[in-house]
């Protein structure tokens, strides 16, 4: 099987049309999902806050498309993209965001804690860096069970400040665990540029533990997909953990309430990324250039997915809340 994969990579041609269009669908799905989340917040229909993934879609899709359905991921407070990319359905996600019983966690988790074991999603985590040990442990479990699964630990560059990450990488490297640490460097820890919080070179942090480390452009879904296939394959064959740095950007605020951002980053910077480095636009252009799709087709897809998202939202809006007496259920397994 592993060797089969290898040949697959070797022979990998220009992304085939079906796959390319599927990537597009997935990225559009995340984009439109998050725009709806923002609307739900602005219209005061969503309790609490949410952290939008808009601008980073290529990372979640590029990496998750290279995974098996039974492979594991752990995610972060900015987790909707990872969740969708791994295969979750928008209706149950919206239901969770609105605290409804039809949600993935029966409304108990909310935006920062969506988990879905059916797609290998071990859960978003509201503790920065909090899932580094969990993902590493899932990889250890996969190795012990000889299941051939790998675990991907998604985290923002802010988690480089958390000691747990280094403790985990050390053990992953020592024991050659099948875990891939995916650092999404969107340039900011909340309201602070990562250069003010991060000494030295990010790549050196993982290389120091003897971990195979790669840095790539985070807005190019195809590049991320190809690189992911390669390192995931290596990791799956028992060559030990890998560390992937994807340079990207969040187009909106740290959370939906972070409107005035001028004190920590310039409008100009935001405009540049939105106009020149939008991962969805970039893929759409490539699809048209390579004549895999014309504008019409892409617009049809947008429309179709827009409708799916709208249905998901109304499903969630109309779904019932949990019975109050559920409050003390699921404390002990």
């Amino acid at each position, binding site marked *: 099987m592993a060797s089969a994969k290898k040949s697959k990579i070797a022979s990998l041609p220009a992304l085939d049309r079906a796959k390319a269009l599927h990537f597009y669908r997935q990225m559009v799905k995340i984009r439109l999902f998050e725009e709806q989340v923002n609307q739900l917040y602005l219209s005061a229909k969503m*309790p*609490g*806050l949410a952290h939008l993934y808009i601008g980073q879609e290529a990372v979640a899709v590029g990496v998750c498309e290279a995974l098996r359905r039974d492979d594991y991921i752990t995610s972060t407070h900015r987790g909707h993209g990872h969740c969708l990319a791994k295969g979750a359905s928008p209706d149950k996600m919206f239901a*969770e965001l609105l*605290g*409804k019983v039809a949600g993935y*966690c029966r*409304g*108990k*988790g*909310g*935006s*920062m*804690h969506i988990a879905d074991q059916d797609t290998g999603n071990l859960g978003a*985590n*509201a*503790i*920065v*860096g*909090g899932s580094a040990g969990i993902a590493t442990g899932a990889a250890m479990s996969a190795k012990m069970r000889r299941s051939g699964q790998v675990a991907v630990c998604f985290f923002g560059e*802010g*988690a*480089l*400040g*958390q*000691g747990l990450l280094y403790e985990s990488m050390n053990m992953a490297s020592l024991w050659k665990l099948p875990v891939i640490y995916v650092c999404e460097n969107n340039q900011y*820890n*909340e*309201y*602070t540029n990562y250069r*003010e*919080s*991060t000494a030295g070179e990010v790549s050196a942090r993982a290389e120091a533990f003897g971990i195979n480390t790669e840095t790539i452009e985070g807005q190019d879904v195809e590049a991320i997909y190809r690189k992911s296939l390669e390192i995931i394959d290596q990791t799956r064959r028992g060559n030990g953990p890998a560390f992937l740095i994807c340079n990207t950007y969040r187009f909106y605020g740290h959370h939906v309430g972070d409107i005035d951002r001028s*004190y*920590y980053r310039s409008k100009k910077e935001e405009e540049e990324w939105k106009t020149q480095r939008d991962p969805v636009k970039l893929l759409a252009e490539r699809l048209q250039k390579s004549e895999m799709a014309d504008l019409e087709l892409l617009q049809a897809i947008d429309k179709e997915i827009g409708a799916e998202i709208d249905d998901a939202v109304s499903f969630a809006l109309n779904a019932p*809340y*949990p019975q*109050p007496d*559920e*409050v*003390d259920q699921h*404390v002990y397994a």
Partner: protein
Amino acid sequence: MATIPQDMHVTPATVREITFGQAIKEALAEEMRRDPRVFIIGEDVAEAGTAFKVLSGLVKEFGTERVIDSPISEAGITGITVGAAMTGMRPVVDIMFGDFITLTMDQMVNQAAKIHYMSGGKLRVPMVLRTTLGATRRSAAQHSQSLHAWFSHIPGLKVVLPSTPFDAKGLLKSAIRDDGPVVFFEDKMMYQLKGPVPEEEYTLPLGVADIKRAGQDITLVATSSMVQVSLRAAEILEPIGISAEVVDVRTTVPLDTRTLIDSARKTSRAIVIDEGYERYGVTAEIASVIADGAFYYLDAPVKRLGAMNVPVPFSPVLEDRTVPTAEAVAEVAKRLCNKA
């Protein structure tokens, strides 16, 4: 500048209404002006003024050398704070959500709390760890806890839980001037609460409870967010002829046991209300101190209301059931007074 005794009433002339958050900021600003050794370190405390915007503007006055944005390293910044405090500074470390103190426990408990004692009294750790507590912000299980019971359990630490802007300012100034480590918990939901605070400088002593409302029939002992809840409960009870005394413990360590016990002896009934998990929480210590100290005066068992013993759920319909309400407190009070 005199310490204001709990019973003193501030003369109206000098008072203005400010929010709990402003009171915190004033206390920090005044202490930083007064003592060059005081500085602030934490995540997004400078330009951003913290996630709750409580410190907005401080960096303008004191600069980034004294209002320091840190990486996301709770253990590291707490350790740095301990070391700076041991060597001549008086740092205030900001831990955004009380849930994150889980990451600081070794530095606070095995280091800060014990260094003075382990060194036979030679080394001192004059630091303050400011953090938050309180649920119902729809922030779910990892951003809603009130974990002050943990620190209250540890000899060597003092623990402050203010319930009004006036108390917050006076207690924070005392915490900063204390020669040992103090943990200061702020209720996130209270930052916008307004209250009278004098223009004049003042401090409030650590270890002195405050009777927020005098009463005859039952004592409601409360902390932080639950003081306001208890005051509302007292209003519900008033019309039905139950006069409730509301005692704010203000600091769980040192605990003003005398005031609590005297009040319970006077009223013969007591309920302890706190927003931490009820089981093995601070209500247990306070209730057992009262049950022991007022044993021969009590007409009914001391009751406790804490947060429900469940991780804080996200869904509003569930979360709202986990925190004690004025109505719930009033119900228990009625039963204890046989008026239910």
